[in-house]
C-alpha cells in the first residue's frame, strides 16, 4: 500500500469523528505548549546570562594569579615570554601595583589614587580602549582611569561638603578642567630610617583617559604608569613598588607582576588556553570557566523542565490512546473486510500508527505556534508588569523566555515518541482483529 494511500485512508477516517480528533489534538497541543513554554524560561534566562557575560570586556581573557611553585614569588618576565609563545594569544597584559598611593596634585586638586604600572603597548593591542588621548610612551607620561577626575578634591574641601542631602555628588566639587596634556605632581615617600620619611615629586603628563567600563557598577579611578616609572620609584624607595619598609641591606628589586592577563584571539580558544596554562602549574582563571559552569547548571535546569513538561504530553497521550482504541473498535468491521481482501497486519498497523502520529504532529505544531505567541507576549508583558509592580527596571535586552529550534525539535521528538507509544497498543489490537468475527459484526 502506497504511503499516499495510507494518508488518504487516515484523512478519511479522521473526518468521521472530527470533534473527537479535535479534542485529542487540543490536549496534545496544550501538553506540547506547556513543555515548550516551561523550558523556554530556562533557555531565555540562560541566553540573557550568557549575553551578559559575553558583553564583559574580560570574556576572552585568562587571568593569571600566580604560580604553583613554593620558590616563586610571582610572575616574572620569563613567564611572560612563555605566555607570549603560546598559540592563540593576542596579547599579554601585565601589571604591578605600587605598594603606596602617591599623592597627585593638579591645579590645586589632590588625590592619592591606586597606582599601577602597566604594559602600555599590550594595553593597546589587547583592545583596552581609551576615551581620549593616547597610551603613554615614556616614563613621564601617565594614563588615568575614566572615573579618576571624580576623586580629585580641592585641598581645602571638607569631604562632608562633597555630597548633598540626597547623597549625590555636588557638581561644583568635581574637577572641571581638562586632564589630557596637564602636568601633574606625583609625590612619593620613602623611609630613611625606622621613623623618618622624605618625599620626592615627579612631574608626569596625562596623555590618555580610559574608556568607560562595560558595566555600570565598575569604577576605574586608577592612575596607570609605565614600568620604567615603577622601576624609578622602586629605586628611589629601595623597595619593590615603593613599599614603605626600611631595611639596611639593599633589597632585591626583581620585577614580579601582580596581575597578568592573557588575551586570546577568540572566545572559542579561551578554555583550551586556560587549561594549558593551568596544566603548566599557573593559577589561571577565565570567564569561560564560569560559562562552563553556567552552561552545566542551565543544562540541568532545562532537562528538568523538559522532563516536567513531558509529563503533560504523557497525560495528553492518554487521550490519544483512548481515541485510537475507540477508532479501532468502531472500525473493526472495516478492518475485517480489509483483512479478508488481503490487507496484511503490517498495513493495518501502519495506518493506525500513522493516524496517531498525525495527531501528535498536529498537536506539536499547534502547541509550538501557541508557545511562540506566549513567549512573545511574556517577553513584552512581563517587564511591563514587573516595572509597574516593583518600580524596578529590568536590564536592557533581558529575555524571560526563549524558544530555540532545538527546543522545538525536542518537543516534537517527545510528542511523536509519546503518541507512537500510546498509538501502538490500539494499532496492535487492530492487527489482531479476527476476520470472521468482524465480518459477522461480532466485535
Amino acid at each position, binding site marked *: *500500500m*502506497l504511503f*499516499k*494511500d495510507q494518508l488518504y485512508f487516515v484523512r*478519511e477516517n479522521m473526518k*468521521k469523528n472530527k470533534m473527537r480528533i479535535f479534542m485529542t489534538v487540543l490536549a496534545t497541543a496544550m501538553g506540547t505548549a506547556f513543555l515548550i513554554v516551561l523550558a523556554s524560561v530556562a533557555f531565555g534566562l540562560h541566553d540573557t546570562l550568557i549575553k551578559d557575560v559575553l558583553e564583559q570586556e574580560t570574556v576572552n581573557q585568562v587571568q593569571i594569579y600566580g604560580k604553583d611553585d613554593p620558590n616563586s614569588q610571582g610572575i616574572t618576565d620569563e613567564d611572560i615570554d612563555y605566555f607570549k609563545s603560546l598559540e592563540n594569544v593576542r596579547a599579554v597584559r601585565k601589571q604591578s601595583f605600587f605598594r603606596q598611593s602617591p599623592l597627585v596634585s593638579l591645579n590645586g586638586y589632590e588625590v592619592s589614587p591606586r597606582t599601577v604600572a602597566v604594559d602600555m603597548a599590550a594595553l593597546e593591542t589587547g583592545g583596552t580602549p581609551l576615551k581620549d588621548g593616547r597610551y603613554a610612551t615614556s616614563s613621564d607620561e601617565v594614563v588615568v582611569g575614566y572615573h579618576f577626575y571624580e576623586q580629585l578634591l580641592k585641598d581645602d574641601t571638607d569631604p562632608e561638603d562633597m555630597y548633598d542631602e540626597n547623597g549625590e555628588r555636588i557638581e561644583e566639587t568635581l574637577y572641571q578642567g581638562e586632564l589630557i596634556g596637564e602636568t601633574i605632581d606625583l609625590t612619593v615617600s620613602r623611609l630613611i630610617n625606622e621613623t623618618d620619611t622624605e618625599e620626592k615629586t615627579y612631574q608626569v603628563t596625562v596623555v590618555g583617559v580610559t574608556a568607560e567600563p562595560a558595566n555600570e557598577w565598575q569604577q576605574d579611578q586608577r592612575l596607570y604608569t609605565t614600568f620604567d616609572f615603577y622601576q624609578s620609584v622602586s629605586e628611589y624607595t629601595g623597595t619593590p613598588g615603593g613599599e614603605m619598609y626600611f631595611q639596611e641591606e639593599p633589597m632585591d628589586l626583581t620585577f614580579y607582576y601582580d596581575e597578568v592577563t592573557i588575551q586570546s584571539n577568540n572566545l572559542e580558544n579561551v578554555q583550551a588556553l586556560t587549561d594549558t596554562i593551568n596544566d603548566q602549574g599557573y593559577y589561571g582563571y577565565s570567564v569561560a570557566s564560569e560559562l562552563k559552569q553556567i552552561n552545566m547548571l542551565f543544562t540541568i535546569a532545562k532537562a528538568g523542565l523538559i522532563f516536567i513538561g513531558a509529563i503533560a504530553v504523557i497525560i495528553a497521550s492518554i487521550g490519544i490512546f483512548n481515541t485510537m482504541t475507540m477508532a479501532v473498535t468502531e472500525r473493526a468491521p*472495516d478492518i*475485517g*473486510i*480489509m*483483512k*479478508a*481482501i*488481503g*490487507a*496484511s*497486519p*503490517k*498495513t493495518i498497523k501502519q495506518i493506525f500508527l500513522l493516524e496517531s502520529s498525525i495527531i501528535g504532529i498536529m498537536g506539536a505544531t499547534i502547541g509550538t505556534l501557541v508557545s511562540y505567541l506566549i513567549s512573545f507576549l511574556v517577553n513584552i508583558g512581563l517587564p511591563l508588569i514587573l516595572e509597574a509592580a516593583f518600580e524596578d527596571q529590568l536590564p536592557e535586552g533581558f529575555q524571560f523566555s526563549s524558544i530555540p529550534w532545538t527546543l522545538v525539535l525536542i518537543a516534537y521528538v517527545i510528542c511523536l515518541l509519546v503518541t507512537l507509544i500510546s498509538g501502538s497498543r490500539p494499532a496492535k489490537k487492530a492487527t489482531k482483529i479476527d*476476520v*470472521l468475527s468482524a*465480518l459477522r459484526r461480532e466485535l
Partner: protein
Amino acid sequence: MIEVKQLSHQFELGKKDKKTVIPVLQDVSFSVTKGEIVTLVGRSGSGKSTLLHLIGGFLPRQSGNIVINTTDVSDFTEAQFAEFRLGTIGFIFQNFQFIQSMTAYQNVELPLILQGVSETARKIQALDTLEKVGLKGFEHHYPSELSGGQQQRVSVARALVLNPLIILADEPTGSLDSETEEDLLHLIKELNESLDITFLIITHDDEVAKIGHRSLMMHDGALIDQEVK
C-alpha cells in the same frame, strides 16, 4: 488449482474447565482443477463454510494440507496468507461486506490500493471491472444506494479486479431474489468461460448448484458424494 488433503477441524467451545470439542470437518480430501466451477452443497452445520474459511486462510489449519496453485499454504502465517490471498484469491460474501462509507468505485478500488497500484492504473482497472459486471454509471453510488443485485455485482467486481486465479463464494445468492440470482449466476458462468477463473461456491440452493461442473456434497463434516455433470 485447489488440493485439499485429509483436512480435519474442530471447534472448542466453553471455558477452561468445561470445554466442549465439536468436530466440524473430518478427513476431507478433494481437488479442483483450473477453470472449474465447483459447488459445495450441504445442510447448515455440515462444515462447508468452515472448509471455505480454511481454504481462504481465515481460520488456522489444525490438521491436513491445503495446496493452492502449487503453493502449500498449510503452514502460512496470517501475514503470509494475506499477501497470498491478495494476488490469488477473490471473495464473494453472502451479505456483500462493503465499507459503507466508500462508494462502489472505492470499494472495488480497495484491493488495488492494498496491492500498491498507482492511482492512474487503478482508476482504469476499477472502472473497467465495474463495466464488466454491468455497473457502468454506478461508480459513485454508495452501497446503500444500490439494489441487492447491484451490490452483489460490486462484490463480484471487487473479487475480480486483481484478476485472481480462484474466486471463493460463500452463498453468493443468499440475499438475492430469484431474478437477480439468475443474473448473477449468468455473470459467474460468463466470467468462468471468458477469463478461465476457478470458482468454489458454497450453496444450499439447487439452482446455484446446477451451474457447477461438479458438486461436492457435505454432511456432518465429511464429504459424502461427488456429482459430475
